[in-house]
């Protein structure tokens, strides 16, 4: 059973590291998605462990939310891309200190 949790943890960490190291906004965003899905894995396996369906339901919720996030996120990223002709998150650093 714990293997699934471990796996989800690993995936989660990979995602997190990805967020920290990658510059491209899209990739960063995908890493977040990866973390979300890692969470889903955790939900499902816990659901299995406890033998109730709440976890699986949660997984569906998360997917929906993820979809919504994609919409919003991409729209923001695209509008920035139009302005800057780049999707590097490091370029957007006018607001500081």
């Amino acid at each position, binding site marked *: 059973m714990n293997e699934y*949790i471990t796996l*989800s943890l690993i995936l*989660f960490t990979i*995602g997190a590291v990805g*967020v920290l190291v990658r510059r491209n*906004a899209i990739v*960063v*965003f995908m890493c*977040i998605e990866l*973390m*979300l899905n*890692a*969470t889903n894995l*955790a*939900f499902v396996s*816990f*659901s299995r*462990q*406890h033998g*109730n*369906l*709440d*976890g699986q*339901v*949660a997984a569906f*919720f*998360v997917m929906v*939310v993820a979809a*919504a*996030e994609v919409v*919003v*996120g991409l*729209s*923001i*990223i695209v*509008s*920035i891309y*139009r*302005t800057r002709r780049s999707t590097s*998150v490091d370029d*957007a*650093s*006018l*607001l*500081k200190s």
Partner: protein
Amino acid sequence: MKTLITATDLPPIKAPEIEYALLGPLFIIAGAAVLGVIIEAFWPRATRFWTQVVVAVVGIIAALADTVWVYTDLDKVDADLVARGKVAAEGALSVDGPGVFTWGILLVFGLLSMLLFAERRLEGGMSAFTGRAADAPGSASEAEAIKLRVEHTEVFPLALFALVGMMLFATSNDLLTMFVALEVLSLPLYLLCGLARRRRLLSQEAALKYFLLGAFSSVFFLYGIALAYGYAGSFELSAIDTAVSNRSGSENMLLASIALIAVGLLFKIGAAPFHTWTPDVYQGAPTPVTAFMAAGTKAAAFIALLRVFFVAFGGSQWDWRPMIVAIAIITMFLGAVVSISQTDVKRMLAYSSIAHAGFLLVGFVGAYAGVAGSDRVTSVSSTLFYLTVYGISSIGAFAIVTLVRDSGGETTHLSKWAGLGKKSPWLAGAFALFMLSFAGIPLTGGFIGKWGVFSAAYSGGFWWLVVIGVLVSALAAYFYVRVIVLMFFTDPVGDGPTVAVPSLLTTVVIIIAALGTVGLGIIPGPVLDLAQHAGAFVR
């Protein structure tokens, strides 16, 4: 994979019971939001703006009225501590005193912010939001959009969605609902942040940062939920509470989930070290949106924080209290100190909001639930009052920020504010008033708020934290005072700032905020009693 769940074992699905009467305010706001979307689709552009305004305002006012009604007949729950309200919507929401009180203040904040959203006098007949977000800044199409005077009237439904999200957040009784509510309140705000008419680059950058970091934090939040679920086998706060008090399951998993859930919530209230987004977003976002965020998000997130930690994790408060103490101290100190060297009004207010998050945490960490049968100020009631005062004052402050302008729109650099007091004493006086309230000087609401949270902490046995708190508030006072010096005791550079003459909307907001700040300082009794009356959370 031991047993497959087959259709035969499925219990008969019975329709969920929804207490429509109790949840009225939520439905009204959601409905208004949806209506707004429909209007976007079908209403003629010419009159769309004002229609949206009317829909939003009327919706909020209606919801407010309903909230009052709901609040007045919340039935008393017999518990060791007085609590009002009940768990509704199949345990998804708990409509209780604190929650409904928060609805009330959120709606008030929303109303005031809507008035700021609707201000069109300052930008020559157009709102503070960009005409067409899709156009690249400075592009021909943008110029054309400006010429055609097109506007994003979607901001109103978006704000309403965010508002309903906040209200859900404050009352959600299980973690899953809380997560959904979190996203519902966040996503519209991400967008709103990017819609500034002036300085669009900054605005978009703010949106991007807010979005990425927000998503990042919400993922941690979500994973925390997962762990909590793994620990307790349920999303319901009360169920988790029982699990915690039975100490069933792995301790470490519980602690990890506490930490991760805390991350998501602390991010929203802007506590260190999860505050980094605050200054950038506050500065970049359109000022009305900043006002809305500053007041609303903080309130909703804080009540959610209290709810989770008191209801679900109350059993293990000896585990998380030290953590929160540390964060409170760091947050207060960092907010107060860094704001000293800020040169931009909006950034300064952002850091001040961080400092206030710290003070609120002081009251929270006292975790003082009061004594049955006595109306002593509790962590919950003091927090509620503080949020009220803080929200009103900061909306007022940001409203004033929208009025101090030069050719390039708002001029937020502090040096431009020199000598404002000589130019327009009343406006500067109002701003000084808000500053003094933030500083917690008596006869302003801020003082009563500080008194409340400190007394909660003291009652909870943290008198030394109170001493630290007062010393830090002295630090904080230092920079609020500097702003006053700048406005009143310094001579303007060059011709000084120009103060745009706003329409009735902004004026009303400022006047209400000022009166509220003073009123809550001199006769806090009524509001305070309301907060007291809210009692504890219903589990």
